[in-house]
């Protein structure tokens, strides 16, 4: 990033403000492209993983190998579809909602540290910022559900918002022990603190952090509204939840945001607990940092898909019971326990 600023200020002769705006525009475009690629790859991956877990083939015809071009064909199909706005819908909100959902995802991506020094927004508050701006997705979902003027959409939106607001708490609480260990909310500092092989990753530092990782993982599945916590979209009850009335490009935005959020929570899991861009064993050092980071993220996404296609959906009351009576107390115990462990092992400054 420093090199990019220097390039635009020295070589292109821009002022400091101009260089910052240019770099921000480049990074935003880059993030958007990576996001679109993610959605493309993950739709294909999801169908193949689901097929594998259900002992069938999944898409095999489009493209030569394993139906890899199916995602591209699906994307072209979705872009060519008619854009329908229901007559009774609240037009302004209906049009704005997908943009807001996508904006929430894109803003959160800004603070992801892909490689040493390579992060779109190197914020002192990185992690806190990510959790804060992802809450815009909730507003977008509520907006979509209400504007559709459709009872299934509204039910889906209300469920989605209730679920995401609840699970934000264990999600953030599970991250607190890591922040205590690092002494910083900066995403780069958190990764740098895990240098030196797999045993320095935060997940293996002490038993409380090990539990925190799983709390984070469960909460992140609920945050992304994916199975077994996919109540907002239950196709057997609510048609498709909050995006029931959306078609074509606008539906694609929700779709994009869903997979962007899936990769986002996976990458946060990697940077918090699984060593970020550091290779697990010294023999794998030759891989570029960003590639190591992305591979770990994709493995977390795979874990997420594995869970989704293995477990049956929970009920709404089970969902809330799990969040408020199991996960939040457990996360609080982990926070206190990790703090005591730090004091006992002399890691506290």
């Amino acid at each position, binding site marked *: 990033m420093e090199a990019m600023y220097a390039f635009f200020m020295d070589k292109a002769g821009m002022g400091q403000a101009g260089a910052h705006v240019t770099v921000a525009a480049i990074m935003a475009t880059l993030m958007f492209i990576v996001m679109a690629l993610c959605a493309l790859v993950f739709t294909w991956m999801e169908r193949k993983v689901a097929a594998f877990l259900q002992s069938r083939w999944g898409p095999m015809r489009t493209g030569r190998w394993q139906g890899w071009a199916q995602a591209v064909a699906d994307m072209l199909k979705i872009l060519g579809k008619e854009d329908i706005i229901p007559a009774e819908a609240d037009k*302004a*909100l209906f049009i704005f909602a997908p943009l807001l959902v996508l904006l929430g995802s894109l803003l959160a991506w800004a603070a992801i540290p892909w490689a040493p020094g390579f992060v779109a927004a190197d914020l002192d*508050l990185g992690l*806190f910022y990510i*959790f*804060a701006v992802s809450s815009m997705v*909730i*507003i977008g979902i*509520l907006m979509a559900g209400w504007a559709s003027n459709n009872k299934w959409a509204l039910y889906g939106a209300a469920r989605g918002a209730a679920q995401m607001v609840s699970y*934000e708490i264990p999600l953030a609480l599970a991250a607190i022990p890591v922040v205590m260990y690092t002494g910083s909310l900066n995403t780069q500092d958190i990764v740098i603190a895990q240098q030196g092989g797999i045993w320095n990753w935060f997940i293996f530092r002490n038993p409380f952090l090990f539990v925190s990782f799983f709390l984070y993982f469960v909460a992140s599945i609920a945050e992304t509204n994916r199975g077994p916590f996919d109540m907002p979209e239950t196709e057997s009850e609510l048609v498709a939840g909050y995006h029931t009335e959306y078609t074509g490009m606008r539906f694609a935005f929700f779709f994009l945001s869903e997979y962007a959020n899936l990769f986002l929570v996976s990458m946060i899991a990697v940077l918090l607990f699984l060593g970020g861009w550091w290779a697990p064993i010294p023999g794998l050092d030759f891989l570029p940092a960003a590639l190591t980071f992305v591979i770990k993220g994709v493995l977390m996404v795979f874990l997420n898909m594995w869970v989704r296609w293995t477990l049956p959906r929970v009920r709404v009351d089970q969902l809330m019971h799990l969040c408020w009576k199991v996960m939040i107390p457990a996360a609080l115990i982990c926070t206190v326990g990790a703090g005591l462990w730090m004091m006992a092992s002399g890691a506290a400054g």
Partner: protein
Amino acid sequence: MITDLIFVALALLTVVPAVWVAFSPNIVHAGFALLFTLLGAAGLYAFLGADFIAVTQVMVYVGGVLVLVLFTVMMTRVPQQGRRRHGLDHYVPAAVLSLAVFGLLYKAITSVQWNARAVPAQPTTAEIGVNLMSNYIFPFEYVSLVLLAAMIGAAILIREHRNGDGPDGDRDEEVAS
């Protein structure tokens, strides 16, 4: 020059939706317009170099309070366009109250000696944390006590009433007798 432009943009982002919140006949639109006001306020905090406050503003108000407001608003029926009448009996008290609040705020803002010096923006999180745990430990703990009381109150309010134990049970008995 650029800083002035940023300030004006943020101020407009805060004020224009706020006007909408006050005057929109559709209460759900008003709720969603609040989103931009809150984001604008967060932007102003960030612009002042208060990065922690800015992000907290988004976390608490957009992620928490606004979601609650929208939930509540969506439970109500949206009034049909034109059905709601604004008579003088609404406008006059509202205007008097707004002017009084404006006067109070104006007096407060102009009478305070602001520490108006430009300091380069520094990360504030660590300092806030240290202060909360040392100089301001009592207010911090006191606020957490208030929140705990609110939580217990909410839990009591939504507690299930068993038969003959609480308001619902009593009413059943009265009907039976």
